[in-house]
Structures are given as C-alpha cells and as structure tokens.
C-alpha cells in the first residue's frame, strides 16, 4: 500500500528550503514528529551504545592502578596476579581490586587506583560483604538490596544490578542479530519466490508449508538440551525457522511490485534480473521490513528469555534476564529477584513497542475517515 504512494507521488512535497524530499526522507521526518516513538528510539539507541562501554562503569577490575611508580590498566587485562600489585598474601590469585583500594587508602602512600563507579562483576560471588541482622545472625545469600548491592544479590551471591545491566546488552544483541539473519534469509527466499514465480514459487510454497508446521520451539528445546548451545549456535538454531514470517511478506511485496509498470519499463530497457531486484523492487519493498523490525526484536528478546527461563538457552554462559527470572521464580520470597528482570524487560519491550507503533505509522500509514 505504501509503495503505491511511492509511485503516485511524482516529486515529493516541497519544503521551506524549496527542496523536494524523497519518500524515505518524508517518512523519517514523520517518524521524528511522533515524539513518543522517536524519543523511545533515542533512549534505546543510547542505552545500547552505552552498554558497550559498560565495562568502565560496572566491573570489579580497576580502571587505572598506580603502583610503585608504574601504571596498570587492569580493565583491559584478563588477569593480573595479586602479588604483582603487592597483595603478597593472595599470591597468584587474581587481584581483588576492592581490597587493594582499601589497602592503598590505609597505607595513604603514593599508590592509588580508580575503580568503576559500580565495582561488581556480573559473574562474581560476593565473598566480602557480611550482613548481620538485628538478632546478630549472619544473613546468607541472597542479600537484600543495599547501598553496596543496589538490587541485592542472587542466591549464589552475584550482583543482581550488574547482571541486569549486562543482560540488557546480551538481550538486545541477541535479538538484533537474530532479526537481521531472519530478515535477510526471509527476504531473499521470499523475494526469489515472488520474483521468479512459477515452479520456484510452487516448490517454495510447499517447502514453506512443511517448514512452518514443524513444532519448532519444541525442536529447539530438544536440540538445545542436548548440545548446550553458545550464543551463536542458539541464533543459528532459531534462525532455521525464524525466517518464515518475513518470507511470506516479501513474497507478497515482490509479487505485487513485479506486476507494476516501472518493472516492465526496466525489463524493456534491458535491465538484468539482479538490477531489477536490488535497484528497483527492493527499495520499494522495504516497508514490511522496517515496520515490523521492533516487533521482531521484541520477539527475539522474549524467545531468549523464554528459553533461558526453561534452562535451555545460553545456560549460564552469559548474564541473561531469563535465567534471572527463573531464579526469581524459584525464590518467590525474595521479590527483588523477580522484580529486577521483569522491570528491565518491561521497560525495554515497552520502549520497543513505542518505536514499533511510530515506525508503523510513519511507514505504513492507514488513514481512517469517518462520516460521524
């Protein structure tokens, strides 16, 4: 529908500068004017960009250490032996920089270090903090939220806030990569079927029917329970079936666009198939891709959370919201364990929904006219 606008509008609408805008520019302008969606987009983009330098903000390794006149940058290093920095009693063990910081402060010498603002690693068990309740008994894990651990720790003593923050990066990266692969595969196969039609289309349709009726989530569970997939393999597994939805949409787009005059014109001018596909039809068929993108990312995040929740996802290889949710569900008496991942997921998905609504309105507008 939107592509028909593309062909019927000759030169775009003139702007104040007297320059005409392309359809894409006008759509982007429309998207920017939808404040809720646009700001959500900026927030998600900002947070995701920030999540790549999270290392400097949430981490248990010091950013800079000045020791005996030399500078160390442990944050970039996998491992520094404790004795290198004068923690002789810990020997070859990795340095505990929080302890080192306390030591330096006590010595009050020329040595100093800068810790990240939130000095906990998502995979680290807190073995230093001891909490004592009113009765004088030591409190075991999970620790409730405090100024040390903003959202407390989980039952194995890992910092919930750090896990939640790193889980954001994992979730978005996972969903983004999965969506890109699904969309590329789906567009390629759907486009081929729509463009070449005939036998390819018929064959493809049969294949799609089989593929789409396989209980794939169940199958992913089976395979995942056996091979314990890594991040990449899990994406590979999911993308084996995830492309189907997009292929339907793109097949439809290509079928419709191919019947239009501008394609006939291109063919009669002697354009090759690849020129027609990539230069003529594809740019006019981007609407389903862009308008569904945020919802596909929501789907990707939810799938990862679901798999991790069942224990068949990344299986503890990376901090994940699904695993946190499962831990929270198993420890219902400690509500913060449940509220943290649900809150993080809720805010992220809500922002994504806002983006999705705005994109849809900008790229695939439906005007409703009513008499009364």
């Amino acid at each position, binding site marked *: 529908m939107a592509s028909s606008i593309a062909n019927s509008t000759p030169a775009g609408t003139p702007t104040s500068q007297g320059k005409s805008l392309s359809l894409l520019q006008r759509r982007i302008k429309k998207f920017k004017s939808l404040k809720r969606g646009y700001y959500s987009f900026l927030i998600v983009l900002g947070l995701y960009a920030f999540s790549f330098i999270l290392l400097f903000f949430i981490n248990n390794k010091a950013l800079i250490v000045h020791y005996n006149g030399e500078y160390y940058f442990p944050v970039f290093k996998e491992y520094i032996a404790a004795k290198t920095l004068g923690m002789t009693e810990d020997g070859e063990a990795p340095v505990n920089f929080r302890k080192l910081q306390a030591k330096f402060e006590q010595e009050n010498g020329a040595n100093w270090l800068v810790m990240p603002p939130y000095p906990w690693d998502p995979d680290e068990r807190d073995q230093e903090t001891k909490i004592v309740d009113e009765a004088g008994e030591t409190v075991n894990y999970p620790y409730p939220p405090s100024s040390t651990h903003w959202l407390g720790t989980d039952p194995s003593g890992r910092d919930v806030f750090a896990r939640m923050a790193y889980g954001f990066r994992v979730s978005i990266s996972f969903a983004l990569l999965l969506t890109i692969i699904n969309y590329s595969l789906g567009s390629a196969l759907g486009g081929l079927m729509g463009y070449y039609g005939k036998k390819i289309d018929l064959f493809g349709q049969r294949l799609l029917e089989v593929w789409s009726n396989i*209980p794939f989530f169940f199958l992913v569970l089976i395979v995942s329970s056996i091979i314990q997939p890594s991040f990449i393999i899990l994406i590979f597994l999911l993308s084996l079936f995830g492309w189907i939805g997009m292929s339907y949409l793109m097949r439809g787009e290509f079928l419709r666009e191919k019947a239009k005059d501008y394609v006939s014109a291109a063919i009669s001018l002697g354009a090759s198939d690849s020129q027609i596909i990539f230069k003529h039809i594809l740019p006019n068929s981007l609407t389903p891709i862009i308008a569904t993108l945020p919802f596909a990312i929501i789907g990707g995040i939810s799938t990862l959370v679901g798999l991790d929740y069942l224990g068949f996802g990344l299986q503890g290889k990376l901090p994940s919201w699904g695993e946190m949710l499962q831990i929270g*569900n198993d420890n219902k008496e400690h*509500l913060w364990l449940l509220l943290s991942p649900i809150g993080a997921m809720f805010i992220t998905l*809500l922002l994504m929904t806002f983006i999705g609504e705005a994109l849809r309105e900008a790229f695939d507008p439906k005007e409703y*006219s*009513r008499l009364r």
Partner: protein
Amino acid sequence: MFQYFIRRILLMIPTFIACTIVVFLIIEITPGGPFDQAIMSAQQQQQVSESGGSGGSDKGGQQIPEEAKEALKKYFNLDKPLPLRYLHWFGNVMTGDFGESYKYSEPAITVIASRFPVSIYFGVIGFVLGYAVCIPLGLYKAIKHNSVFDISSSLLVFIGYAIPGFAFGALLLAVFGRQLGWFPIGGFRSEGWEYLGTWDKVVDQLHHTVLPIICYMIGSFATLTVIMKNSLMENLGQDYVRTAFAKGLTERRVIFVHALRNSLIPIVTGLGHAFGLLLAGSLLIEKTFGIPGIGMLQYETVLNRDYTVIMALTVIGVTIQLTGNIFSDLLYATVDPRIRFR
C-alpha cells in the same frame, strides 16, 4: 470450493510425513538419546558395584559386554538403518501404536491423554474470556477513537505487548500467592481434591484458575483488541457505511448491524489458529504455575529424552496445526462471501 478443500486435506498427508521426518531425523541424529542414556546408566551401575566390591579400581567397569550392547540396540531398534526405523515407526503410528514411554512405562498415547484435559480446560476458558473482553473493548475503542478512554486503554494494550504472560504470571504468583496468600502458589488442584465436597471442589478449582487465566489472556489481549479496533475503523470508512447513513439509519444500527459484521472477519479467521494454541497449551505458563498439562509434558519429555512421547506429541501437534489451518480457511470462506478458493 469443495474441490479446493479436498485437495487441501489430501495435501496434508505429504506435509505431515515431511514434518515427522524432519523431527524424527533431528532427534535420531543428536547424541544423548535413550540408547546412550541406557549405556551410561549401565556403566555407572557397574562402576558403583565395582568400586563397592574391589575397593575402587578405576580401570574396570568401563566396558559393557558387546552382547548386552547389541541387545540394547535391538531393544531401541537401532540395529536397523534410519529409513527403516522411520518406516517402522510410521507403520506403528498408522495402526495407532505410538510406542511406550521410556519414562512412565505406559503407552505414550495414555500419558498424553491424561494431560490433555488440563490444557484444554485452561485453553477454553482463556480463549472464551479473551474474546469476551477484547471484542467489546476493541469495538468501544473504535467508536470512541481518540477519546480519553481510547488513549488510556491503549496504555493497557502497550503493557500487554511489553510483558510476556509467563513473566507476569511469575510476578502474580509471588505477590498474590506467596506474599499475600490470596491464591495457591501453582498447581492444577489442591492435594486431596478428590475427597472434597462438590462445592469445595468447584471453589478449589476456580481458586487455582484465576492467576493462570490472567496470563493466558495477556498473550492474546493486545493483538486481538488492536485487530478488532483497526478492523472496525477500516469498515467505518467504507462506502457502504456512508450509504447506510445516507439511508437515514441510526448510528447504532449502522455500527452494530452493518459495520460490525464485516469487521469481525479477521477475528473469526483467527479462530482456526487459536484452536491449535488452545489444544497445545502453553509451555511457559504451565511451567510457571506447575500445571500438569501438555506444555509441562513437553518440558518433561525433553528433560527425560522420552523420545516416544516426543514423537507422539509431534504427531498430535502437527495434526492439530494442519487441521487448524484448513479450519481457518474454511471459516474465512464462510464468513466472507467475496473469498473463493480454487
């Protein structure tokens, strides 16, 4: 039309076979199947008895006699090549024999049949309530487009999109089950339900139903409401609505008699797919609430590598889905006279 559906039903057969082949192949070629597990447990048992007897020799007990291995292979049908195994399995399925569950030592079909009523119970209630809420809500939102009610209820729709049913379920369970104690913390019925009086049975059942049903509804709430609203909005802009108004009909009659009927089309055609979901249960919600339905069974069979039950579930799942698709098309053709399948 009739021919079209006959052809569709016949096409179900190759699709069904292809689907089961894919699943069969995948679970057969992945390691860690029942045979491997039987070998492993046999090795462990030997090791335990060895170390108990001779004081912990590590070398012994690793080997299982070849004859025993062969017998095991025969038991799991692994002595035959893969295509033959599939044919063997397929032949059995055609005669209604799905094999015996490794875990429960009962016919797979019995195991599944015992779980079905639970999933259907939740499925039907969630389904009916979902439609009963979403259709009027979507309708009202369309009529009062851009009103305060429309905008504030859109917020609910957004929340519905943004929170997966099972996650919300976990939260509900923790707050209303664990912290406040208003509802039981999961399960289908209380223990000893059979011994309760009729009235107590009903109360107990309802008590266990409320929270899961909310989660089932959340899943479809956002989508259904939006479909209903957009569909009615679209119809209200059509010429036939203009004509109806021009004839001097009341707004009430135009909306409820003329426009509503047509705007229910996309909702009705979704019924076929909903039917499939209804029978399949929801793995994540059932797991959260500890409801012993089909979804929970899927989870358990995956954990136990109970391959006969997995294949039986696949057969049932694929059949339901294929029937649901055809059912959907049939409904589509019935409610929309413009549609003609050839």
